[in-house]
């Protein structure tokens, strides 16, 4: 048996321990079959899921970033030369795991409508104007403290075909990797006080109210920039590994 520099066991020697990423509590994630959101009907697994024990492939994951991201990717208001229309906002927050540990160096990708509620996408037909100065896409890497920050404009609401007079509440799509395959997350950030939240089957697919509210950003007066931009804080919590006895005794 050979021991590596980190004191862990190297290949061929058989035994090693891996972290165990805790499963979400019931109601924390939405059910894949969610009849209020009609498109889930034919797109959710019909058979029971099979338990996948977390082994090497699941406790590791892609560490992407440096080659994909430049500083300019985090400012959605300067990507096209001119200033986009709309309310300028700063969207910032911390990515951490369920044990409160920051998740550093992880890729955060966002996409959103422009201020009029229009996506820049070939299959989008909502009759609201495109903004020649706004693409609505951004990327950032979290810093050592798990923090990220975007500058953008407030997205708009738009109609969709789910049911009669259906409108999506304004939202920004977020995609995150974390540090392990188990932590991969795609979510949406909503805005506080949006009256459409009460009517939205996608937002309300999350049955646990406290979890649902975790998708609503917090307006932060302290982080606004006078004469320039409003600010919203959106912290993101990914699955975390079960804490060791030592960590629980010394939080």
């Amino acid at each position, binding site marked *: 048996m050979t021991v590596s520099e980190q004191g862990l066991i190297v290949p061929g020697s058989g035994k090693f321990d*891996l972290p165990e990423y805790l499963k979400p509590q019931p109601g924390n994630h939405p059910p894949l079959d969610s009849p209020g959101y009609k*498109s889930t009907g*034919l797109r959710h697994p019909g058979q029971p899921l099979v338990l996948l024990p977390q082994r090497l492939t699941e406790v590791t994951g892609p560490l992407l970033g440096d080659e994909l991201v430049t500083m300019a990717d985090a400012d959605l208001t300067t990507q096209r030369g001119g200033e986009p229309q709309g309310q300028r906002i700063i969207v910032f927050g911390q990515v951490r795991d*369920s044990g409160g540990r920051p998740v550093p160096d992880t890729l955060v990708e966002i996409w959103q409508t422009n201020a009029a509620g229009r996506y820049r996408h070939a299959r989008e037909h909502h009759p609201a104007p495109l903004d020649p100065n706004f693409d609505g896409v951004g990327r950032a890497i979290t810093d050592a403290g798990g923090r990220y920050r975007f500058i953008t404009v407030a997205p708009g609401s738009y109609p969709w075909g789910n049911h009669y007079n259906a409108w999506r509440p304004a939202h920004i799509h977020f995609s995150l990797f974390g540090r392990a*395959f188990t932590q991969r997350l*795609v979510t949406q950030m909503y805005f506080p006080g949006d009256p459409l939240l009460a009517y939205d089957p996608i937002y309300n*697919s999350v049955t646990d109210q406290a979890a649902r509210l975790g998708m609503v950003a917090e307006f932060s007066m302290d982080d606004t920039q006078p004469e320039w931009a409003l600010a919203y804080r959106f912290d993101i919590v990914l699955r975390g590994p079960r804490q060791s006895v030592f960590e629980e005794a010394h939080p």
Partner: protein
Amino acid sequence: MSELLTPSQTVGPYFSMRLPWPEGPCVVPAGTPGAITIYGRLTDGAGDPIPDGLIETWQASPEGRFAHPGDPRGPVPDGDKAFRGFGRCPTGHDGTYKIVTLKPGGLPTGDGRAEAPHVDVSVFARGMLDRSVTRIYFPDEAAANDADPVLQSVPAGRRATLIAAPAGENLLRFDIRMQGDDETVFFDL
């Protein structure tokens, strides 16, 4: 005490504004010696193609290593550092995707057993409120597959949905069926 997680939500119909990137489907550059292409079709419960889906793959290097601090076996050989291990491909109008990669090596389980070579897959789409997770196994690994603890935990009649089909030289087909007869096995991770 652990915090509530930020809930998952659908990628929606417009993720292709941001998530795909040109070399995303190529875990290794096309033409890399030993490269294989895995392709297939993502279909819904009516058997119709899902044209607004996103397939992501994550896997070990051909030597069965991960250049990642979560791999307790320690630092990888230099050759493995360059292996990204991650692929991402949006589905086309006909529901198809393809990933160009190297076949992964087998992996120790940590308790004396071994996992057969496999690729972990995340499936995202409009109409999916959370990803669905599956695995691609390889048709030329019958003995390793027969000893793989994950495959053996799957009901025998459904295991074939997890094994890619030979489709030509260096070419494998792996269809992903969300529902119906031959529904792909999806995992609770």
